[in-house]
């Protein structure tokens, strides 16, 4: 009996020390991710010719790309400062989370009532919204090769019934307005 108690004690001690070690690692990672520095980011919005036009602004970003993605997408969702450009997203669209997976797949999880309940719009607005995110992330982060959009944490067929977002998307150069 005493030996069993001893065994339990040993297991409990080693588990708690492992947890402490994990906590330290997570804390270290959090600190690295939260270390902010100002960086100029090029954001892509819709032009009057229904293409993607850009504007740049400097924003404070975490050093770690994976952590910076969410900040950039949230900034993008705020819309352009240049009045000649338009914000294509539904007014209530929000970013739930963004991650960077190995091999350059960025996962961007969108939410908000319109996207979750079914966005009623045409293919142009849907396409520009999708590729505004894809273009902005791939243009600013060399580590991002493709972007996989999720809706409310789930893989979705489309945002509004047209463009296939069930797998990661590459940027579409033909959608970007020529300078």
């Amino acid at each position, binding site marked *: 009996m005493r030996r069993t108690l001893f065994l339990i004690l040993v297991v409990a001690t080693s588990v708690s020390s492992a947890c402490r070690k994990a906590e330290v690692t997570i804390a270290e990672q959090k600190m690295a991710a939260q270390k902010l520095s100002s960086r100029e980011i090029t954001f892509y919005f819709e032009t009057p010719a*229904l293409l993607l036009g850009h504007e740049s602004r400097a924003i404070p970003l975490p050093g770690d790309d994976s952590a910076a993605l969410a900040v950039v997408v949230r900034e993008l969702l705020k819309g352009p400062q240049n009045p000649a450009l338009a914000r294509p997203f539904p007014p209530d669209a929000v970013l739930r989370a963004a991650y960077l997976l190995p091999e350059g797949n960025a996962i961007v999880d969108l939410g908000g009532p319109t996207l979750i309940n079914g966005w*009623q719009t*045409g*293919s142009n*607005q849907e396409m520009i919204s999708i590729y505004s995110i894809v273009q902005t992330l791939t243009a600013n982060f060399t580590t991002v090769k493709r972007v996989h959009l999720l809706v409310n944490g789930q893989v979705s067929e489309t945002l509004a*019934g*047209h463009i296939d977002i069930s797998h990661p998307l590459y940027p579409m150069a033909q959608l970007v307005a020529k300078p």
Partner: protein
Amino acid sequence: MAKRTNVVFLTAVAVAFATYVWAQGSSAARLKFPGGEQTITIAQQGGQPLFPVDRVLASVGGRVEKVPEGFKAVVGGLDVAFAADSRYAVVRDKMIEMPQPPMIVEGRPFAPLQFFSGFLRLAAGLDAVWDQATGVLELKPVPVETLEVQPSVVDVQNLTKIVLQLSGPTEYTIVREAGTLVVRLVSPIRVPVPEQKYDSAYVSGMTFGPKEVRIELKTAQVAADSYKLENPFRIVLDLRQAAAPVPVLPQTTITPRRRNAPGIHTIVIDPGHGGKEVGAVGPGGLFEKDVTLAICRKLAARLESTLHTRVVLTRESDEVVPLDQRTALANQYQADLFLSVHLNSSVIKGAKGSETYFLSADASDELARHAADRENSGQGRQGNSELNLILWDLAQQSYLNESSRLAQVVQEEMNQATGVLSRGVKQAPFKVLVGATMPAALVEVGFISNPDEEKKLTDGAFQDTLVAALTKGIARYKSEYEVRIGVAPPAAPPAAADRQEQAPSPSLPASVLPTRAAADRPGV
């Protein structure tokens, strides 16, 4: 003491094993089948149980084999084809829809319950019922219900419409025998009267057997379409004058699917959105789904009358039709051309014009990659023509060039006829074009977000102009394509729609009854 240590060790092993099983998302279940029961391992994905296809089908004498395109299973001489990336399994000319595609675990397919209930009902008259609480999957005979039948025959314009209303759904086939159409039912019927006389244009009477309805024709020169309607369940046959004398084929089984001769014979037109998926909404409150349906109905009628082709609409009413089902229907009916019709919308004020899309190479590459992965993981090559139906992805690659050409001519004709600004031909990964095994394009006929274009799009005369332009584009593509593949002479005149109108009909042999796809689905 050593005994206690063993107990601790064994408990730890058991916990580790349970954790492993949990992590794998698999668990044990009981399989009950006629004549026995056994334990099976089931998998879980997205909260849905997935059952091992090999074990479940083996219990009723079936088997599964890996083929290059996916898997083939056989029960009672009936094949089903399915693949790990498709929510549709194919049995003859029917598709079984599953809530999610089958999952492959260590080379073995695991499929949702709907796969088994759909397939075994057809193959063995068995229903598959899953009880989550007790963890029992039971395969039990489908109770055979005797159905009431109410026949009616009416002449409408140039056709005779026969409606067999039944008190419940049943599988059926329609067979043509000399001077008679025989509707063979799987479920027995209560015979209303042995014989009923009619004096309609093409029908002289009907006789009823325990499992069949025989429709006596007045003349052999009758062509017929058949389809079914749900709620209540009805089998409908539309009889019309055949273009040429009908060769009487003894015991010809009539199926809705046929292998097309080269050329464009079947066109699928897809009205965008539907039901609660209203599509884009105009500033005046116009719904995209309503305009696309109106245009597509007109387009289908015009194509049928001018090109003499078979035209199938992916929806004929205001209903939700999933995107993959639209393309799957076109594939199932072996369509030679697919055109999806949409209205555009933008946040940019003054956005206007029409554009035509075909699938982007990226999306096509993605499909080819999946196909290549499957090929590489296959266990050797085995030919199986049945499986061609689900080879959507691989085939798409070869249709890209034709899709590009189709998009080009449709856009040119639309631009010329309507005077709407042409925004050109483009490529994008449209979900509804993914996996179409035929030239496929999507037209955005105008911007509903633009008040001027919204107004135009509701105008019947503008819709007619648009429909004439789309018809002309399709006619031009059809004649150019048929010259390219050598089924029409190169000296063919310009393919104006009105010229096509005078051309001899290349329509179906009268011995084949086409089934209208949209009406074939439940709830239509």
